[in-house]
């Protein structure tokens, strides 16, 4: 539309047929990418070119393209969700890149997230951790108290909301040298620990979720804080500390 300068780029992209085969980098050239385009739109254009050349397009995960579903991933130039901070890959725009640049694109790399194809990984381990206790055990029949019968101090509600904002993207795991899922699990544990409704089963919850997390093969947290830096939703390390406190208390409680 408006006459903006198009970028010419070299892309080194990880290609892998499926979980069982070995992958390798392939190099692609792309030109005339608008600086207004998002990173994923740039990949769309590349895919369109590949299809026109009779080649298989690159598989990558995405859905909402609004930074909220947590589906997009990508390690871009060595960083989860690319060079900008506080955003997901779908919100990364090409104005962050320079003409003539080479961009390296890889999938999340973590033992708990096996590659499905190309840039797509399997994050269902997160779902299994949630099924182990990431909920409040209340029936969904609607036979509950009036909502205002459970007052929650605004500060607590806001903090719970900040923790609840996690989108389950897995950048924290991908960026952690130990592949730890503590930020993700800590966020969920914190949300419920901060709300009166969640207190009743807090002990069971944290024990079960931490066990599930370990069973899935996520590594341990060594407090380097890389996860917090790359988290698109600004989930803070405070949540890991709160989870540890909850865990210690629960562990002691358990005897």
């Amino acid at each position, binding site marked *: 539309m408006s006459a903006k300068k198009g970028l010419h780029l070299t892309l080194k992209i990880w290609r892998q047929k499926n979980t069982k085969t070995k992958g390798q980098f392939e190099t692609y050239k792309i030109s005339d990418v608008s600086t207004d385009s998002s990173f994923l*739109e740039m990949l*769309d254009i590349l895919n*369109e070119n590949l299809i026109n050349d009779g080649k298989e397009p690159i598989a990558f995960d995405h*859905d909402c393209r609004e930074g909220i579903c947590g589906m997009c991933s990508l390690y871009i130039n060595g960083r989860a969700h690319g060079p900008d901070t506080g955003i997901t890959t779908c919100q990364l725009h090409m104005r962050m890149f320079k003409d003539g640049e080479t961009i390296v694109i890889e999938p999340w790399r973590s033992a708990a997230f096996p590659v499905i194809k190309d840039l797509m990984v399997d994050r269902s381990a997160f779902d299994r951790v949630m099924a182990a206790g990431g909920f*409040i055990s209340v029936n969904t029949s609607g036979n509950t108290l009036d909502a205002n019968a459970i007052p929650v*101090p605004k500060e607590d509600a806001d903090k719970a909301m900040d923790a609840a904002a996690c989108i*389950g993207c897995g950048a924290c795991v991908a960026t952690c040298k130990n592949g730890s899922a503590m930020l993700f699990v800590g966020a969920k544990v914190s949300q419920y620990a901060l709300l009166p409704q969640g207190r009743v089963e807090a002990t069971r919850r944290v024990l079960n979720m931490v066990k599930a997390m370990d069973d899935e093969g996520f590594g341990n947290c060594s407090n380097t804080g890389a996860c917090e830096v790359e988290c698109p939703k600004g989930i803070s390390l405070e949540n890991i500390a709160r989870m540890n406190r909850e865990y210690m208390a629960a562990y002691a409680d358990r005897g």
Partner: protein
Amino acid sequence: MSKLDSKIPGGPLKDKWKNHKDHMNLVAPNNRDKIDIIVVGTGLAGGSAAATLAEQGYNVKAFCYQDSPRRAHSIAAQGGINAAKNYQGDGDSTYRLFYDTIKGGDYRAREANVYRLAEVSANIIDQCVSQGVPFGRDYGGQLDNRSFGGVQVKRTFYAKGQTGQQLLLGAYSSLSRQIGKGRVQMFNRHEMLELVIVDGKARGIIARNLVTGEIERHSAHAVVIASGGYGNVYFLSTNAMGSNVSAAWKIHKKGAYFANPCYVQIHPTCIPVHGTQQSKLTLMSESLRNSGRIWVPKKIEDSVAIREGKLRPENIKEEDRDYYLERRYPAFGNLVPRDVASRAGKERCDAGFGIENNETKEGVYLDFSTEIMKKGKESAIEKHIHNPTEQQIYDLGKAWIEEKYGNLFVMYEKITADDPYKTPMKIYPAVHYTMGGVWVDYNLQSTIPGCFVVGEANFSDHGANRLGASALMQGLADGYFVLPYTIADYLSADIRTGQIPTNSPEFDAAEKEIKDKVNFFVNNKGTHSVDYFHKQLGHIMWNKVGMGRTPEGLREAIVEIDEVKKNFWKDVKVMGETEGMNTELEKAFRVADFIELGQLMAIDALHRNESCGGHFREDHATPEGEAERDDVNFKYVGAWEYQGDDIKHEVLHKEDLIYDNIEVKARSYK
């Protein structure tokens, strides 16, 4: 013969649902595990339904195409969810929510359904709070509310700008609990491609495992479709990229009627299109209209200067701004319903006042400067700051805005590289929500016995226009509180049926059909990608079945879509294999269905010789440019019956809409 029996229970409006529940058949707890239910979709509607049905003791199999149920498109809803709680004591009630919804929908929704929705709305909030949804609160620890377009009370509950996310995570947590107990079998990365009907009843589906490419058979005593809306027929929309119509369209082809397909909501506050490489449009929540004022320059030369980059909006004086919504609709101002706001914006841009500096020349301003100063002053008083400087006021006001809408402002800045605290946002209408969908009766059952449809995928509660914050309400009402009752009534006849076998000729035939199509796509030696056709379709739809529709345009669209369909089947090129992950193949299946649906939308829009809600026919407008409804001839739901490959042969059935409890009036927001 028409199968349209709406099954609306008798009795006074406010007792219908209660009476109905009292008299429905039940399935006893010890019999529920003899019954299997398939739920397609795990958004608010499907997720809440699957969790609740499992909790009641049925065996549930749930499907979604994403890698996790937590990513369903409901996650993207920003603004909030309505409920008639009257916590603010501003006169809200079940009746008022019901009334606003019917009126907002331009009197094209079913009275009994909407009343039930309003009735259960208060319960939804209770339920979600007990599940740990962190709604916004005031300092007394009580729930806070905001207001949305088309209403004059504050009834919208919110969780920052991430209400849909929090509600969905609430439903997902309940679903997770049932998955953990083994009550729900969850099929992630699975797409339903066909419905299987045995002896006239929905008895299963054919799904494709998107990771392995395997075609699978799944049987059940009932099938629930909760697959969301079809806005992506326009290619560019606010919907997630994978949102599609396939599940709904497949059941339509198997006998479910499709109602009011032409009712599409065009949302007034989206970020304008920036270029031809664009894949998706982004919504800026309607809640922003509580604080933002919408305007374009009064003088056309100012608009031209802005477009040419010679003038900044901040430099246009107050008296040279046209706050056209406040001017035209003094009673509601910037809070008129979406259809009205969208059309008014289009009208200004068509008249040459648009401000975007690209070839579309579209876009209007959403300006927060007045609110920033107003809230800044209020905040200064509250904080006992006497004689605050302009800068102090601005900073306090900015902090207030940030607390309320911070994430939206960040999102806007990332996309446009403009700072909306300093310069007004640019917005323009975009395709957002589809009020049409599969026809269902009061029990949410389609015209196929045993096939239920919930959430945005059905047509039921919003009429020709949906008021803000009511889709979330409908999704959860259907899933938590309506379907679990009504489906039991149907299933009570099935406790002796036993498991439904998947080796029947019906399953064989359905599977073969899908396998043939898969093979066709990957082997077709075409020359154009799936997106190429999708964009062509989208272009026709936006220009001719979009915000303003004319009979000529619609007739052209019907013919042009035929052409796209022919070319698609001749010339589509799908790279990759039948086995393993193949995202192009997924798209091909979806676009094939969008093409057919698009044509039906044009046909429906052509037959409806009136304007109502999202359906604005330029040949049916008042001299002031307002929509002109025709209640005498069109006060009905138009439900289409499939008649084979040529969509032009679909047969129209009418369900008359009867309003016993409210007076049908012209819709005015003046």
